[in-house]
């Protein structure tokens, strides 16, 4: 029967209650604390900070709690909050060469100043369940083995080592060193410059970036990368207030940086040089930073005069489709009512079919007398 949808507001409010109930789950199980999520789900918090474009581990943990662990919903919460925050200014550029290292690996050299630092990684865990974690009160953890020697004070970045030899594409700011574009405040136009591309990828969906980066490796893009370096650690954020005129330290952020070294044939003007793919992300998020650095290099196709044949090389494709909050909104909007437009389609298809039947009937009645002749 005709369903009048009066009472929509009451129904909407009821969904809020129901989602709160679903979020809480069985009340006999203790409620999860935001601090627990921040401390024990750090990688999830990192992803939410990246895709929410806001470095705040507490808010990321709150977003995950409120979103029942849905990373995209949590990123959405972060962004909707971020957009309302006042801006005091921009920090000084971060110096990742001065990172206080937790992990640093290079695939291009067996050993290098500062050495290979494995740090906390799942790389060699064999992915065997640790069933002791099932217990509420796990036995006292064996403390991490202390390093036999302290890390070197100097940990030069691998591309800088190559750069000193003139073998690495130089990272130079554009002429005049303009203020970087802010894609959360200004509309993007194409072709997009590298600052815009890197920003978009830094907040892009990890899974989408991973898939695109993978496609580059499989031949959908001209890439022959080596991991020059992946480094994870803390970097100081400095800010120069107008009234002081000198930099003050605002605290540290945890970052993951990946620099890929790629082949490049050079040209008449430029001697052969390695080219760079760059990835940077909040928290410990190697998969994201590595994927980003693959796609960053692929997107330089235009600058290097390469054909931009594949999706990962096309800035419009990558930038428009990597934003998971936008993508999720548009995909999921299909569940909103569309019955007005659908009615238009029904009216058309019924009429076309009816007219077609009429036409066939007419043809048949015309054809019959001819057959009789």
């Amino acid at each position, binding site marked *: 029967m005709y369903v009048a*949808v009066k009472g929509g*507001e009451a129904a909407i409010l009821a969904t809020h209650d129901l989602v709160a109930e679903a979020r809480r789950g069985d009340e006999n199980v203790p409620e999860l604390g935001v601090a627990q999520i921040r401390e024990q789900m750090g990688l999830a918090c990192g992803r939410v900070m990246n895709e929410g474009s806001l470095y705040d581990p507490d808010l990321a943990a709150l977003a995950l709690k409120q979103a029942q662990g849905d990373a995209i919903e949590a990123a959405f919460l972060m962004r909707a909050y971020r*957009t309302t925050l006042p801006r005091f200014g921009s920090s000084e550029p971060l110096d990742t060469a001065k990172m206080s290292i937790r992990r640093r690996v290079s695939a291009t050299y067996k050993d290098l100043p500062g050495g290979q630092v494995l740090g906390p990684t799942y790389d060699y865990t064999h992915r065997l369940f640790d069933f002791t974690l099932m217990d509420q009160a796990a036995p006292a953890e064996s403390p991490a083995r202390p390093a036999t020697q302290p890390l070197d004070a100097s940990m030069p970045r691998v591309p800088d080592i190559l750069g000193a030899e003139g073998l690495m594409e130089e990272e130079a700011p554009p002429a005049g060193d303009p203020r970087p574009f802010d894609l959360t405040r200004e509309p993007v136009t194409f072709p997009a410059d590298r600052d815009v591309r890197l920003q978009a990828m830094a907040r892009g969906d990890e899974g989408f970036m991973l898939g695109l980066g993978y496609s580059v490796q499989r031949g959908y893009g001209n890439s022959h990368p080596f991991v020059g370096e992946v480094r994870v650690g803390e970097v100081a954020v400095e800010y120069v207030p107008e009234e002081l005129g000198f930099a003050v330290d605002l605290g540290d952020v945890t970052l993951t940086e990946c620099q890929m070294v790629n082949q490049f044939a050079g040209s008449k003007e430029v001697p052969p040089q390695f080219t760079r793919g760059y990835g940077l992300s909040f928290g410990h998020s190697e998969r994201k930073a590595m994927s980003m650095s693959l796609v960053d290099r692929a997107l330089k196709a235009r600058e290097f005069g390469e054909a931009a044949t594949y999706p990962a090389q096309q800035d419009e494709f990558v930038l428009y489709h990597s934003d998971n909050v936008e993508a999720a909104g548009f995909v999921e909007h299909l569940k909103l009512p569309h019955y007005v437009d659908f009615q238009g389609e029904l009216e058309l298809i019924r009429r076309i079919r009816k007219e077609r039947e009429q036409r066939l009937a007419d043809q048949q009645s015309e054809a019959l007398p001819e057959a009789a002749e």
Partner: protein
Amino acid sequence: MTVHQSISDETRPAYNYAYLDEQTKRMIRRALLKAVAIPGYQVPFGSREMPLARGWGTGGIQVTAAIIGPDDTLKVIDQGADDTTNAVSIRRFFERTADARTTEATDEATIIQTRHRIPEAPLKAGQIMVYQVPQPEPLRKLEPHEAETRKMHAWAEYGLMQVKLYENIARFGEVTTTYDYPVMVNGRYVMAPSPIPKFDNPKMQMSPALQLFGAGREKRIYAVPPHTSVRSLDFDDHPFRIQSWEQPCALCGAADSYLDEVVIDDQGGRMFVCSDSHHCETRRAEGHRGAMLADASALHLVEDEAKP
């Protein structure tokens, strides 16, 4: 409950009036003024992250937030109805963030935010229609690259669109686009009217109301000023035509309104009723009665205002 305050009391955080900060409103307002100066042209704007999902009306919401003030009366519709869930949600957003005075009556509204319909009652001078737009680029289905479609608009190269429409005619005997049917605005720009059914296209032509379009995800704003030519693309031998139904509205008897189809049983039973819920209610209150009004009323599915 309202959550905004214009002057912060410095003790607790609060959202600005109509959610957006003033700098954002200025940016949107500048885009709106350029949009009315170049009817049908899509102005890029710095669309903000909104607390509602992309694709759920964030463009329309940003436009409404940038124009609304204490003197306004807001009507929000989705599919022509005031009581669809997303319309309720957006109306509630403005009640909370802007103390908005709201109405369901088309002729009382100064701002009408809509998804997918233009009301049946004629719009008046002084009214502003705000359309929620999912895909502002009418050429996007023909050419996915923004860099290319921007050139096509710059040079008014719309041949591809004509070809596509004509291919339709060759195959089906008519243009098979039933909604978001492209229009030519002020003889210069081809424009997406948003996914309104083509039934509503003629209402845009020389409308006395100002029509504003917001695409949040795609970050475009465009406009049609009052009394502006809005012509649906067609051909001399295949003139534009709109949808029609074989029966009038089952509730109010209207024979000239856009109808929704309601499946009433699993035996193929159908009922056709006005998509514009306020229009239908107004007509019933005036004593118009459709064939199934008594049945629907007996089941308390609608109120039959004519009955004592």
